[in-house]
């Protein structure tokens, strides 16, 4: 069982899933496991963050402890994972 990390989600994402919260603790050893855990807790949320390239969506960003991360990024116990919306749109 991986150790607990903290995931912080953007407000625009939380607004799409009634009952979801901005800051949540999940057990995850990689970025992918953290996103999977979020999707297990709120069905459908994984699809809002990742797409069929099996990667993070083009206009989404994930930072781990302040560094730009990918799904493969390893997470230390207690890591802070920030899921963010990139600058986009018009």
């Amino acid at each position, binding site marked *: 069982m991986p150790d607990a990390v903290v995931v912080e989600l953007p407000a*625009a*994402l939380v*607004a*799409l899933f009634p009952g979801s919260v901005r800051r949540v603790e999940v057990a995850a050893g990689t970025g992918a496991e953290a996103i999977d855990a979020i999707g297990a807790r709120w*069905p*459908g949320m994984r*699809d*809002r*963050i990742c*797409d*069929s*390239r*099996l990667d993070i*969506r083009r*206009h*989404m960003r994930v930072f781990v402890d302040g560094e730009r991360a990918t799904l493969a990024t390893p997470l230390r116990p207690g890591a802070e994972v920030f899921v963010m*919306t*990139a600058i*986009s*749109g018009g």
Partner: protein
Amino acid sequence: MAMAKKLLVLLGTKKGAFILEGDSARRNWALRGPFCETWPMNHVIGDAATGAIYGGGGNEWFGPAVWKSEDLGRSWTHSSEGLAYAAGETPIKSVWSVAAGGGAVYAGVEPAGLFRSADGGTSWQHVEGLRDHPTRPEWQPGGAGLILHSLVPHPQDARRLWVGISAAGVFASEDGGASWEPRNRGTRADYNPEGQKYPEFGQCVHCVVLAPGESDRLYQQNHCGMYRSDDGGRQWRSIEAGLPSTFGFPAAAHPHDPDTLFLLPLNGDTAGRYVPEGRTAVWRTRDGGASWQALRTGLPQENAFFGVLRQAMATDRMAPAGVYFGTSSGMVFASADEGESWRCIAQHLPTVLSVETLEVDA
């Protein structure tokens, strides 16, 4: 005594869905919205059979989804479960078109493909037969991308379905989506070299609608002309004579008369795509496209530099029929008398991407 009815005009816009709620005379309108978290909503429809409202859209951050409201817009859910191509393929950017029919809900997406839901939009299955079509590798995107729009389920026969793909043309299935054939004979591709202007596929179809009744009558607004087919799209013939241009996006069939059609020609694909001469007109035929009348009463007749997009004109099912369109400048115009006279019923909205109607109990 018949239950009193009221009409909803459902709007998809570049920044959310909106609903205009009319009184029984279709004269006074109240606006509600924005809905769907201000996502770009390409197409918002009402399912007359269930009263549900579905909205297809896509958000730059979060990708595609079909939104649904079962209480006329008061609350919404969204789903994209199964609304994806196989792992590794180009992601779906947005849902472009939604249709309900034959006990299913259909979603057309970009890049072009078709999805079907048998559970009212909770989950989706890819209709693989269309993307497996041998012409697929040669489909070319139009200006808005490689999009599947103009989803036309046959109202009586659930096995039959037409789709429009920009710019691959019209395709039809007679077996519930398992197999498809291009149906573009007689429609032009002016942008092709001499001798190749009538290809089997590759036409830039803008909008396809089915005429009411038992016939196989279809109408089409194409990038290159306006057309009619009396055999389910196997053969098309031009009905553009008498219209001010060959270019436009929407077409709206009359709810009861198969010979009546409404078009909104624009000034041309390289001329700004405005209403011609800055003067707004809906054009109506009463004889299947043999002749046309410009309908202008109440519409802006000077300095109108807007366009009307492919899903942004609709009729209602009342008598006389109402006609509605929304503009790129965020205005909505309505006629309660088959286009004879018009009123602006909303303005200052985001760019209007779709207009549909839903009749509900008052």
